[in-house]
């Protein structure tokens, strides 16, 4: 398809079976203006994977007219193209010719990750300071005395200032924020410990004291920041991979003005009453009524119905459905903000459930831990005051208690395990968007699945191929290759080398089927009533079935096709694994009872509820939650989105609707449904390791605190104890990497191909 004047070639597009490519207006809308008439367009190209790809893409794009530069980013699998002028270069056609599937990337999500660069800078500064202070401290521990020791302490104090200001700032802000809201998190004891340690060390330095804890306070920050940065990097990688998926909602639409002119208008500016032209392969942008044209609509992502719906003039269409076969003219009846999609977003916001009530393990632990530690330090101070009456000594020992209990290991215990677990899942094609998601997933006891697009692929599959005369099947496949209707695609999959003459001319009748003329015969593939126009003659009885799709020769039916929505690969195995893991499995669907019971029977699901509205799904999940179940929702459609949000934790496939992918905690990129039990297994293992790590940290404190209270802690002992506990916690977390190696092979293979399999549904 060429990339100019979308309206002009709509009639031609029908015959084109390629998937829809964004129109030039849409590209322009999604690009960023760079001043002058330059624009930058960001494309996500999931299939880029080597130096050859970089070279091929950059060379080909740079040759296009108007393109100033093209640069591939291999890590994020993105291409950013700078171009100038009014005419949009044929970016998609070029990439398509090279064999790369590309999709537009929204420039607004492309904003630079400020948090990450702040974290990395903080790690660098803290690392520099910790290294230098540690060197000076080593000389103090090995016996530097008098003026030399004072000098070293002073230099350490100076180096520590930027580290505290820059790296510590992250913790101080977070702690202050938590306290302002009357909550307690892990950063509060860290901030208190670090700043008190610094203040006391400074006091000691001024008074020519022996013990200064500059090294402890800075290296503590350094260790904790490493954990925090790794955690952030992991989640960012997952989020980037999800953002790079193709966008399923329409960005805009061609509006037919009263004076006959055509104009491309962004979705937000579409008003009720406007007449819109929807080409085949485009999504309906807003709710409306069809004025003219016949076509089939794929509603699977909106309502969960698996079979395409034939529509004609007068039919009502919902925003988000995909126009499959013919161009349509429709009249908008609602603006985008009142359309079905927006309705889902509102339901979703109202359903804000499990996740906002959930408090992370680390926060729950620290709300118990911090008061105990601070009280212990205070009691130590009072005790030493009572025993020795030495004000200075009592304060020094109390602060040593705070430093030794400062939750270095505790602060690392949770993020390190989650980083290792998220990495493990990332390699298996499961993106974790939120650290707390894994904690929540480990607790679930009920899994609720959507049917269409989740348990099934949302793509029909021919089920009676073996019963059809191979010659007829080959003819049908040849004809079907000319259409993008899901049934046609299913039939075309059986095409191959056939001895039959190729159909001479093929014509698609949107909403009805395909007609071909070959060897003087008229072949029709499509609806029974249309293709078999000679009524009940011919072999209807012989070829059996009441299926709606038939192949006819000169009006007599010669073959009948039956379709079924194919279950996702490994769906049965995945459900079996879930049941073994003690999770009960339910299915909620917007589809008919008959379609649901078929799928439920094949997959062995006992409980299912058909014909549910989006709000019905939410109510169902809320009812389960009230009955004290922790619910996992797995779904892909727009209609599942509120339910995804209402559930305790949620998983969506990569083919899900945009807002569904945004709402879900996990997104799996590969076709296999085994990703769901895998995610649960890894999360549960991670949960166990987190508990072990917290236990280790508490045992460490049980030993260290008495020593500190008795006043035996020197800076050397503090440094050794803190590093040792951190190393033990990290080593324990690494066991997850080894423990999950015993997984099914399907998920293990194909690392490079992570996002390649993502296709338009």
């Amino acid at each position, binding site marked *: 398809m060429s990339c100019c004047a979308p309206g002009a070639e709509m009639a031609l597009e029908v015959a084109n079976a390629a998937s829809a490519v964004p129109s030039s207006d849409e590209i322009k809308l999604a690009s960023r203006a760079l001043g002058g008439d330059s624009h930058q367009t960001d494309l996500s190209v999931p299939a880029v994977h080597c130096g050859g790809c*970089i*070279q091929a893409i950059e060379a080909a794009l740079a040759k296009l007219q108007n393109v100033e530069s093209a640069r591939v980013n291999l*890590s994020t699998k993105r291409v950013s193209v700078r171009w100038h002028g009014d005419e949009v270069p044929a970016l998609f056609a070029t990439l398509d010719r090279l064999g790369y599937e590309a999709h537009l990337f929204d420039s607004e999500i492309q904003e630079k990750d400020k948090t990450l660069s702040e974290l990395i800078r903080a790690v*660098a500064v803290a690392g*520099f300071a910790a*290294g*230098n202070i540690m060197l000076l401290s080593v000389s103090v521990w090995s016996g530097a005395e008098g003026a030399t020791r004072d000098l070293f302490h002073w230099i350490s104090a100076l180096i520590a200032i930027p580290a505290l200001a820059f790296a510590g700032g992250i913790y101080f802000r977070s702690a202050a924020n938590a306290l302002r809201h009357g909550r307690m998190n892990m950063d509060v004891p860290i901030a208190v410990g670090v700043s008190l340690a610094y203040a006391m060390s400074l006091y000691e330095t001024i008074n020519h004291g022996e013990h200064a804890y500059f090294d402890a306070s800075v290296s503590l920050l350094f260790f904790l920041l490493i954990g925090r940065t790794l955690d952030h990097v992991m989640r960012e990688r997952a989020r980037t991979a999800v953002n790079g998926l193709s966008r399923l909602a329409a960005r805009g639409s061609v509006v037919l003005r009263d004076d006959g002119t055509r104009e491309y208008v962004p979705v937000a500016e579409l008003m009720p009453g406007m007449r819109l032209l929807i080409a085949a392969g485009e999504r309906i942008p807003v709710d409306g009524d069809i004025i003219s044209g016949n076509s089939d609509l794929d509603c699977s992502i909106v309502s969960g119905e698996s079979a395409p719906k034939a529509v004609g003039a007068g039919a009502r269409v919902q925003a988000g459905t995909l126009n499959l076969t013919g161009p349509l003219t429709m009249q908008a009846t609602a603006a985008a903000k009142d359309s079905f999609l927006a309705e889902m977003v509102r339901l979703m916001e109202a359903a804000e459930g499990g996740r906002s009530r959930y408090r992370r393990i680390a926060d729950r632990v620290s709300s118990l831990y911090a008061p105990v530690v601070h009280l212990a330090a205070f009691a130590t101070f009072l005790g030493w005051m009572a025993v020795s009456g030495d004000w200075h000594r009592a304060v020094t020992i109390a602060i040593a208690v705070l430093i030794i209990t400062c939750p270095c290991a505790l602060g690392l215990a949770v993020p390190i395990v989650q980083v290792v677990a998220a990495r493990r899942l990332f390699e298996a094609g499961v993106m974790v968007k939120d650290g707390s998601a894994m904690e929540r997933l480990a607790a679930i006891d009920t899994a609720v699945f959507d049917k269409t697009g989740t348990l099934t692929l949302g793509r029909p599959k021919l089920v009676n191929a073996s019963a059809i005369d191979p010659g007829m099947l080959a003819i049908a496949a040849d004809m079907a290759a000319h259409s993008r209707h899901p049934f046609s695609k299913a039939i075309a999959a059986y095409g191959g080398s056939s001895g039959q003459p190729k159909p001479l001319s093929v014509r698609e009748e949107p909403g009805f089927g395909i007609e071909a003329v070959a060897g003087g015969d008229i072949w029709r593939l499509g609806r029974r009533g249309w293709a078999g126009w000679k009524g009940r003659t011919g072999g209807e009885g012989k070829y059996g079935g009441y299926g709606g799709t038939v192949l006819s020769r000169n009006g007599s039916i010669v073959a009948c096709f039956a379709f079924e929505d194919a279950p996702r690969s490994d769906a049965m195995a995945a459900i079996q694994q879930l049941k073994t893991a003690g999770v009960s499995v339910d299915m909620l669907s917007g589809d008919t009872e008959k379609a649901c019971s078929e799928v439920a029977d094949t997959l062995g699901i006992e409980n299912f509820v058909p014909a549910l509205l989006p709000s019905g799904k939410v109510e169902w999940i809320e009812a389960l939650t009230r009955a004290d179940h922790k619910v996992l929702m797995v779904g892909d459609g727009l209609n599942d989105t509120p339910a995804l949000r209402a559930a305790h934790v949620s998983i969506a496939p990569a083919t899900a609707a945009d807002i569904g992918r945004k709402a879900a905690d996990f997104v799996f990129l590969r076709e296999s449904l085994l990703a769901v039990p895998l995610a649960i297994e890894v999360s549960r293992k991670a949960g166990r390791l987190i508990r072990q790590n917290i236990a280790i940290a508490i045992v460490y404190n049980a030993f260290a605190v008495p020593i500190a209270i008795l006043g035996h802690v020197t800076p050397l002992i503090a440094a050794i104890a803190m590093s040792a506990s951190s190393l033990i916690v990290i080593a324990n977390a690494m066991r997850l990497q080894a423990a999950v190696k015993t997984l099914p092979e399907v998920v293990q293979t194909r690392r490079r191909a992570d996002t390649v399999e993502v296709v338009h549904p």
Partner: protein
Amino acid sequence: MTTLIYLIPVALFLGALGLSGFLWALRSGQYEDLDGAAERILIEPDDGPKK
């Protein structure tokens, strides 16, 4: 003691040099595409200087 007077500044200066080098590399975008940088070294440039 006298050796410390110049050794410590030298040590700190070298450390700071490394730190500022890292921060500069970060800011100039050298960490944005680590995989790409590894592959690009194998790409032969076209003949002649770039425009």
